[in-house]
C-alpha cells in the first residue's frame, strides 16, 4: 500500500492486489506449486475493501473458505498467503491450515460453512465484556444461510446485544447451486426475524459500498448490537479451482459489472497503470519469496 494513495487509489490498489494475487495463483496451480484446492474471490473484491478498511486494528474479522480478499485487505501480506498456499513453514499458519484455515492477528477463517458464526459472535461478546471497544465482522455466503447454527448465533447475538456485523456476500451461487435452489424466502428477513437491524445493497462499486457500510459499522460499535447486511454481488471465477458449470452468458452479463474497471475509470490512466505495475512487482516478489521458504517439519509431541 502506498502512503500517498488517494482514497480511490487505495481501494483500486487493494482490489488489484487481490485480483492479481488470484490470477497468478490460478496460473501457478497448474504448475503444481500449490496444495489442495482454493476458492477465489474474483468479482467480489469491492466487498472486502469497502468493509475491512473501516475497521480498527483491534476489531475482529472472521472469514470463510473464500478468504483471500478478506485476508489481503486485512493484512496486506500477499507473501504470507502465497507461503501458506505453497505449504511453507513461514506461511500465515506455517502450512498447517492451508487456504481455508488461517489466523493472523485478529483475523480468522475456517472451512466449515456456518460453523464460524458462533465463534465470531463469541469473540465480539468477549470484547464487549472486556470493554475493549472492538467489534467483530463475520463474512458468510448466501449458501451458508442454509446452516442452522447461523440462526442459533443470530438469536444469541440479538438476545445478548453482541456487537457483531454479519455480512452475507450473496454471489448468487453456492458451489454449483443457484441461490434459488438453496434459499427460500428472503435473506434480509432472516436477520430481521431475530430482531436484528438488517439491510441489503446490490453493488460492486467499492466506494458506494464503503459509504453504505460507514454508518452500519459505526452503529454496531455505538449501539453494541448486531447488524445483518446482505451484499448482492457475483463470483466471476470458478467455485474452487476448476468447477464452473454456470451458464456462460450469465457470467458474461455480470462481468460487465466488475468492481475493478468501475474504480479504474475514476483514476487517471497513468495512475492506474502505475498502481498495476507496482502491484505486479509486489506479487512477483511475494511469489519468489514464498518459493524460497522451507517446508515445515512435524513437531514431535502428538496432541492429547
Amino acid at each position: 500500500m502506498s502512503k500517498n494513495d488517494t482514497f480511490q487509489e487505495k481501494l483500486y490498489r487493494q482490489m488489484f492486489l487481490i485480483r492479481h494475487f488470484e490470477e497468478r495463483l490460478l496460473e501457478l496451480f497448474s504448475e503444481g506449486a500449490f496444495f489442495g484446492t482454493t476458492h477465489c474471490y474474483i468479482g467480489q473484491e469491492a466487498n472486502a475493501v469497502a468493509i475491512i478498511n473501516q475497521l480498527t486494528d483491534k476489531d475482529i474479522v472472521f472469514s470463510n473458505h473464500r478468504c483471500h480478499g478478506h485476508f489481503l485487505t486485512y493484512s496486506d501480506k500477499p507473501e504470507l498467503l502465497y507461503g501458506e498456499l505453497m505449504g511453507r513453514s513461514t506461511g500465515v499458519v506455517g502450512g498447517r491450515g492451508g487456504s481455508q484455515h488461517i489466523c493472523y492477528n485478529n483475523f480468522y477463517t475456517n472451512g466449515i460453512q456456518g460453523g464460524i458464526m458462533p465463534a465470531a459472535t463469541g469473540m465480539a461478546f468477549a470484547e464487549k465484556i472486556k470493554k475493549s471497544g472492538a467489534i467483530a465482522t463475520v463474512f458468510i455466503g448466501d449458501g451458508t444461510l442454509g446452516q442452522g447454527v447461523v440462526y442459533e448465533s443470530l438469536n444469541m447475538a440479538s438476545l445478548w446485544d453482541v456487537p457483531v456485523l454479519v455480512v452475507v456476500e450473496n454471489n448468487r451461487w453456492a458451489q454449483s447451486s443457484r441461490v434459488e435452489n438453496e434459499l427460500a424466502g428472503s435473506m434480509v428477513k432472516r436477520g430481521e426475524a431475530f430482531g436484528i437491524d438488517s439491510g441489503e445493497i446490490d453493488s460492486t462499486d467499492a466506494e458506494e459500498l464503503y459509504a453504505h457500510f460507514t454508518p452500519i459499522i459505526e452503529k454496531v460499535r455505538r449501539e453494541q448490537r448486531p447488524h445483518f447486511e446482505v451484499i448482492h454481488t457475483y463470483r466471476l471465477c470458478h467455485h474452487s479451482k476448476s468447477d464452473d458449470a454456470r451458464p456462460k452468458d450469465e457470467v458474461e452479463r455480470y462481468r460487465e459489472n466488475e468492481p475493478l474497471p468501475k474504480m479504474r475509470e475514476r483514476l487517471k490512466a497513468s495512475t492506474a497503470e502505475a498502481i498495476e505495475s507496482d502491484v505486479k512487482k509486489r506479487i512477483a516478489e511475494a511469489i519468489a519469496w514464498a518459493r524460497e521458504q522451507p517446508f515445515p517439519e512435524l513437531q514431535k509431541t502428538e496432541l492429547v
Partner: protein
Amino acid sequence: MSTVVKSLNRAMHELLEDPRVVFLGEDILDPYGGAFKVAKGLSTQFPERVITTPIAEAGFVGIAAGMAMRGMRPIVEIMFGDFLMLTADQILNHIAKYRWMYNDQVEVPIVIRAAMGGRRGYGPTHSQSVEKHFLGMPGIVILAPSPFHDPGSLLKTATLDDSRPVLFIENKLMYSRALKNEADGNCGDFSIRKTDSEYTTVSLSYDTFQSADVTIVAYGGMAELAVEAAEMLMIEEEIFAEVIIPSSIKPLDYDPIIASLERSQKLVVCEEASKAAGWGSEVISRITKDHFGLLKSAPQHVGALEFPIANTVTLEEKILPQVKDIFDAAISK
C-alpha cells in the same frame, strides 16, 4: 458432609471471582440453578457473567469457544450430556483444531461440563455416556470426576490452569454422593495412592499395594461400583482387587494401571457406555499393544449392552453394567 454437587458448586463460586470466567448454559439462573443444581446461587452472585442460553447447544458452545479465543475462561453446562452430539462439529472441527491448525497462535481454554449417565429412568436420549464418541479427537482433554477425587478442584484446574479445551463429564447419579475421605493413606478399608499430577489418578488397594489378584479400572459413575465389586470380591472370594480411578480419561495416565497390573496381571476395565468402540476398548488395546505379555488372562471389559438405554427399570438394569458384572469379570478365568 460434602457431596460432588456441593464441591462443584463451591468451585463454580470461586471460579467466577475471576473476571475472565463466564458461565453459559440452559436454565442456569436462580432460583432454578440448573437442572442438576451445580449452578445454584451463581447468577445471584455474578449476574453479569452467568448467562442463561436458548436451547442451542452448538451455538452456545461455539460462542463460548470464541470467548475463550479472546482471553476469557468460559465454562459451559450441557444439561444432559446426550446433547453434546449437537456440538460434535463445533468440538471436532473448531474447538479441537484451532490451536494447532493456526500454528499455535491461539488457545481455546473452554470447559464443557456435561451431565452423563443413566439409572434414573430418563430414557434413551437422556441417559447416555457419550464421551466415547469424543475420545478419538486430537486436541481435547476429557476429565471425569468421581467421589474419590476432589471434583471442585479438578474443575478449577481445568478452568484456570489448562489452556486446552476440556470436556468435563459429570455422572448424574454421582452428584449427590458424599466425597470419599482419605486419612493416613487410607480410604475406608483400602490403602490409597494418588499420582502426583494435575489430574490425579487414585489407586485403591486392600493389601497396601503389596499384592493383587485383579486390577479394576473405572472412572466417573463406575468408580463406586468398582469399589463395591472389590469389596464383594474380598468378602465372597478372598480376591484382592486394586481399583484404579483416573480423573483424566483422555489423556490417560497408564503408569498406575501398569504398576497395578505388574502385581495382578489381570485387567478389568469398566465404563457405563456400551462396550463397542468404548473407552475400555482403547485402554485394553493400548495395554496389549504397549505391554504385551503383562496380562496372564484375557482382559475383561464391563460396559453397557449394545442397545439404546431403555426407560423402564427392568430393561435399563440389564442394559447398564452393574456391580455384579464387574465381580463376574474379575473372577472370570
